[in-house]
């Protein structure tokens, strides 16, 4: 069921390199990030669609591409899918003409304000939360999108089918499983759920260790 981006707990990656410290190790990294943000500001997709575009790169590309190569590849795919750029333009490396959407382009003068505004995902909903802090819950298994077959979800595979305790109610947030597929925001209560490391991995480096994940209400059911 999983895709390569869902790598929590994977074995074999070797040590983390703390000396890999730079924000942009190459000049083009900053450009790739800025281009992705500026194109996102056109409003043709949301952050969940954008994440999903990276996740559904083919496994071969996902594995071979460096971090910002994934961003650029997903951006190019989205621009074509949403009709903003044509395949012919990608092939030629040049614009065929001005876009109808050019009036939506983010201007330099507006950048600071746009970044400072952000895009909160919290929403007010009528329904009260189903779970309270301290309650025991169990996650969906397998970790999958139940609205769209093979669609985007934010329940990592490593936490599927595991029992934990609600430690924070974050209020209602836009549901990525819906939002990533143009199916609407479908906001749901979001909870921080704490799992014993032993519950997730079968063993723990230390008996007191835990992992906490932010999980939407529909990912959860009461433990018993």
């Amino acid at each position, binding site marked *: 069921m999983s895709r390569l981006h869902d790598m929590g707990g994977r074995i074999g990656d070797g040590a983390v390199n703390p000396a890999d410290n730079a924000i942009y190790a190459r000049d083009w990294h900053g450009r790739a990030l800025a281009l992705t943000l500026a194109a996102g500001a056109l409003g043709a997709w949301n952050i969940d669609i954008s994440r999903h575009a990276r996740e559904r790169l083919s496994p071969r590309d996902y594995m071979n591409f460096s971090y910002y190569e994934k961003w650029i590849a997903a951006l190019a795919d989205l621009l*074509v899918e949403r009709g903003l750029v044509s395949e012919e333009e990608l092939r030629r490396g040049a614009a065929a003409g001005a876009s109808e959407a050019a009036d939506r382009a983010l201007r330099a003068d507006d950048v600071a304000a746009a970044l400072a505004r952000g895009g909160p995902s919290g929403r007010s909903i009528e329904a009260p939360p189903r779970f309270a802090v301290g309650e025991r819950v169990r996650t969906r298994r397998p970790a999958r999108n139940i609205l769209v077959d093979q669609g985007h979800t934010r329940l990592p595979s490593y936490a599927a089918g595991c029992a934990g305790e609600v430690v924070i109610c974050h209020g209602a947030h836009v549901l990525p499983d819906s939002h990533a597929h143009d199916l609407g925001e479908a906001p749901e209560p979001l909870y921080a759920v704490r799992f014993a490391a032993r519950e997730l991995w079968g063993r723990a480096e230390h008996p007191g260790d835990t992992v906490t994940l932010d999980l939407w209400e529909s990912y959860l059911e009461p433990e018993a």
Partner: protein
Amino acid sequence: MPRTPFFLALRPLRPLGSAPDPEVFHPKRGSGDLDLGPVSRQGGPMPHDHDHPHALLPPDPALRVKALETILVGKGLVDPAALDEIIDIYQNRIGPQNGARVVAMAWSDPGVKARLLSDPVPFLQELGYYGRQGEHVTVVENTAAVHNMIVCTLCSCYPWPLLGIPPGWYKSDAYRARAVRAPRAVLAEFGVRLPEGKAVRVWDSTAEMRYLVLPERPAGTEGWPVEALARLVTRDSMVGTGLAREPGT
């Protein structure tokens, strides 16, 4: 803000749930990725390299970015000065100095600390440390009994207005894969060894909530001004892969 994406007005989209239009090339649909394999516009098999539009760009990543920028600027969809501005903001204006100041203020003032731990966003807004990838923030406190550590296993979620853009290691496969399963091994790679009996709490940023670690205040800093305290607060100490600097180090 209207939620209807503007492209709906530019191009008719098939109604939800209807069959895909056979005349339209679907390189590899997200939701409809039915394992049919790549198909070409002509309906025949297509070499793997062309099953996504991005493969039409030059293979070298620097040239890819350049080509895409040229196209988008040529279409009027991107203002090159806006790209310079975005890069400058995250290189020179927003970075770990923001988070370090917040931590130092919390160390100095119990009222600030209480606000940060209960409802941090209004306080962060007052400081101007609010915005993209920091719209929802939870601050988690390190104590004698608990060490907190932040990761995003699914992508690279990170509190941008407080810490800037994440460093390479935070985005690396090794960190994403191992921080949840072997946090103490990862901490050792950062030179951090925790006292026996201290529990590790890893937070996997799976939603839009962003986490900031409030590190333990180093001993011997009583009465220090906020600016001096802030210099002890490293980026890694706010992600939980490091501790605050000891005075004199």
